[in-house]
């Protein structure tokens, strides 16, 4: 009798288990980088729900990140709402904004869709920049409190950790839950319909799919998860700024998705990791980082046409195919 091994290796569970040890064996710096990567990875994955799964190019995804960040920060600091309430509130607010903006955006296609998402994002940025009394304007909304994590100290191994390390665990759990839900969504019949729309919207329409409605649903879900990422980032950053909603942020997250590979569910996470680490390494050595980073990105995009993870996956597949043949 042989024990049956699972056909696929549970990479996600292994990665989660390994990540648990980062604050224990790594330095505080690595913990901080890991927190950054996780949050931006969630942000990028949420965009990929539009880009990779549904085939919608959004140039304004940062808007929902910013809305989530501001809602969570303002709720926690100004109204002293506990984190456990403020976080879902941020996601819902971002999702609601995505519903309103998306209602108009999905009426357009291709470049027009992209331009309208950008326009809405710039409106969000302008509101954050101007509304001094609520958002703090250009100087930002500062001194965002960490959630109350004292209760975590009773957990084994976490008794003597600083709040920064404890926050890493909060981020890890929230991000993994979000990724799990998004993966379920992508692999569900609903996700399959989104892929159908990506492949051929006209045909999907003929089959009887209400393309606009499904696109809007994807837009809202993506906005919701971007809002959750923003909420986590605002606390991690200890301050929320209008820059969070600026077009440059939308471009940055777009690069993460493309760099990691939009055909793979975990591509954006790999892209976020790569961009964060590259940025950190290059800016440590030179202030001419835009030149170096730009050149590296060009090389990477040429060498890995399907993104880092996408190209590796293709390679593995072709190797396996050869072995089986």
């Amino acid at each position, binding site marked *: 009798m042989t024990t049956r091994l699972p056909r696929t290796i549970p990479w996600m569970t292994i990665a989660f288990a390994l990540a648990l040890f980062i604050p224990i064996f790594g*330095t*505080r*710096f690595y913990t*901080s980088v890991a927190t*950054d990567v996780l949050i931006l990875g969630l942000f990028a994955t949420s965009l990929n729900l539009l880009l990779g799964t549904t085939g919608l190019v959004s140039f304004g995804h940062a808007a929902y990140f910013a809305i989530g960040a501001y809602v969570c920060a303002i709720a926690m600091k100004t109204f002293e709402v506990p984190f456990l309430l403020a976080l879902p509130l941020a996601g819902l607010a971002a999702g609601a904004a995505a519903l309103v903006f998306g209602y108009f955006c999905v009426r357009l296609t291709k470049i027009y869709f992209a331009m309208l998402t950008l326009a809405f994002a710039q409106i969000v940025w302008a509101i954050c*920049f*101007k509304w*001094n009394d609520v958002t*703090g*304007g*250009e*100087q*930002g909304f*500062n*001194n*965002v409190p960490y959630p109350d994590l004292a209760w975590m100290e009773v957990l084994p191994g976490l008794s003597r950790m600083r*709040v*920064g390390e404890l926050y890493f665990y909060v981020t890890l759990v929230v991000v993994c839950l979000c990724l799990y839900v998004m993966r379920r969504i992508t692999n569900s019949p609903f996700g399959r319909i989104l892929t159908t729309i990506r492949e051929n919207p006209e045909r999907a329409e003929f089959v009887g799919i209400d393309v606009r409605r499904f696109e809007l649903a994807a837009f809202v879900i993506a906005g919701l998860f971007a809002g959750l990422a923003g909420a986590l*980032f605002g606390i991690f*950053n*200890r*301050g929320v*700024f209008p*820059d*969070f909603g600026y077009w440059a942020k939308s471009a940055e997250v777009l690069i993460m998705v493309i760099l990691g590979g939009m055909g793979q569910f975990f591509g954006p996470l790999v892209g976020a990791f790569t961009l964060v680490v590259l940025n*950190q390494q290059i*800016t*440590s050595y030179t*202030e*001419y*980082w*835009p030149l170096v980073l730009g050149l590296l990105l060009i090389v990477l995009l040429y060498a890995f046409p399907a993104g880092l993870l996408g190209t590796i996956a293709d390679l593995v597949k072709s190797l396996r195919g050869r072995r089986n043949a």
Partner: protein
Amino acid sequence: MRKALLAAAGAAVLSLGVAVDARAQDIKIGMPMILSGPGALFGEPALKGAQMAVDEANAKGGVLGRKLQLIYKDSKGNPDEAVRVAREMILKDEVDFLVGTFTGAEGPAVSPIAKENKIVFIAPVSKPDALTAPKNLHPYLFRTATTTTIEGRSAAELIAKLSVKRIATISPDYAYGQEVTAAFVAHLKKLKPDMEIVDQQWPKLGEADYTPFINAQLAKQPDAVFSSLWGGHFVTFIKQATPLGYFKRINNNFVAGGEAGSIESAKAIGDDYPLGIWGNSYDAFNWDGPPAHKDFIERLKKYTGQEQPSSWPSVGYIAVQVLVEGIRKANSTKSDDVAKVLPGLTVDTPIGKQTISPKNHSANRGQFWGKMVKDPRYTFAVMEKPMYLDPTPFLD
């Protein structure tokens, strides 16, 4: 005897080892500074000034027998990037102190990080009053920059001396412009209750077309104008206002904050600079000041290799100088100890005595003001007889 000798030798070796160890341990100062994009024009020279202060201190044998080391990273003018590099410098490079940040957003962004890690943070350029407002102040935060209150009140002091009645303002419509203009208006009303604010224009930050604002302002017939348009915004404004006869109509009674008198702004505007208006800057190489300042300018010329050095090195230099004096006075390189002695500390800087107020942890940093003129010795407009406006008399 032999034993004693051995022991002595052992002790010598030990003490040598300790000495070497102490020498190897530099005092690390982390500097997040804007070094890319348009802001690099000001960030680079500010960094140079800080580096010069560090090099000078090291040439004199360092501080408390240890060398200083300046670790700098590009903040990109982004508050979240400033937070990221500040964290990196604290957690990875293990800096003992932070001196830096540039924009009005970067300073307040890094402040909570300094507090969280208990690292002294000195802001050399961030002006917003909110940075050191009671609700945001903490034991590790200090500022050697001027503030929006000081800048606005300085401009009011200047305009109050002119024989004008109808005053107008034009400022970018965001936190800095609003704060500095509010400080200007409030102080002017106190100084000269009979002066009247006849018009206030608020172009958005980064406005490309100032013509409607200029025309609307001229229609109200002001005698004098205060502006806080800065950098490239000021350059664009000047290029559009001059052909419309704006400065002639107000008789050059134009007081421009936002470092409009700095070399960088003067060079960018070139021959179009409206001569006769008032500008300000953090320092002035042609100031007829005390010997200490002249000496500083001479050293700066050598250090940067520039015949007319920028006004920005002054901010980095003074911030590091204040920190060094703090370390000396505390006789410790621990942020906790230095944070205790900095409030109330007075330092002899090239621009005069600077005192960190115990109340709001900010220095009495004024700026240089002067009428802009064309001097045949220079290819750009400069302040004629720049004067340092000490804000102490008009601070709360």
